């Protein structure tokens, strides 16, 4: 059997990799890729705690389904913003997007 700690270590490592991507990539699309990794690591944690806790309490899976929906909403709005900014400023580098209004 796999102990719970293996899943928790995997999830913490995935979250840290996503955090590194969010903090250090210059491209706005790559920052969104890092956020996706972080959301996925949270889902692994939720599913693992559901499986290793009380299996008949389904709340962990319900929460993971809602995280899926929120991730889809987040990525659609985020990419729409990136495309809109690219049309106006012709760049997707986060450092260069330093004006409140063009």
């Amino acid at each position, binding site marked *: 059997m796999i102990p719970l700690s293996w899943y928790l270590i995997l999830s913490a490592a995935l979250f840290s990799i996503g955090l590194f991507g969010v903090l250090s990539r210059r491209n706005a699309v790559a920052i969104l890729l890092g956020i996706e990794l972080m959301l996925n690591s949270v889902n692994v944690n939720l599913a693992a705690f559901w499986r290793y806790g009380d299996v008949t309490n389904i709340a962990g899976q319900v929460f993971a389904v809602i995280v899926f929906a929120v991730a889809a*909403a987040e990525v659609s709005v985020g990419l729409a913003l990136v495309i809109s900014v690219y049309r106006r400023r012709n760049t997707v580098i986060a450092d260069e997007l330093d004006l409140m209004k063009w």
Partner: protein
Amino acid sequence: MTGEQITFLVVALGTLGSALMVVTTRNLVHAALWLISTLFGVAVIFALLSASFLAVVQVVVYIGAIAILFIFAVMLTRKDMRDQGPQLNKNWWLGALLAVLTFGGLFSLLQGWSGWSKTAAVIPSSFDAVNELGNALTSPTGYVLPFEVASVLLVAALVGAVYVAFNPRSGDSQK
């Protein structure tokens, strides 16, 4: 070492390796393809956790929709970023330090917890997780309200995304 453990280790190493490639590779199309590999690894982890519905949704929603959306966005915005200039900002070492500290902090915090090396209980044969999940998401005593709020949020976000990304100038030129 049982077969389940070997499967977990192989999949976990593949997932983490692909995740590292997502945040370090220069070409963003390759980063999006590595993201698909990572997401597939997470789907296998869900299957190992016997969360079958989550595994299927991971493949359908994440790989089928979100990753394809990323590839579209990369292709629509990749004129100037392709292979020139640094891909990481100049404070990248600070981000790496913070990520390592986060991992170390989570690890040491969880190691002191009593459930750290817990093993999974056997699922009773009369228990059908997918059936339970469907009931919980639609019953008024369960989670129907959060579920409906999530669907309204999704509709609002998609309408907002169309509005934000809509280009009025290209709309005029088509008339």
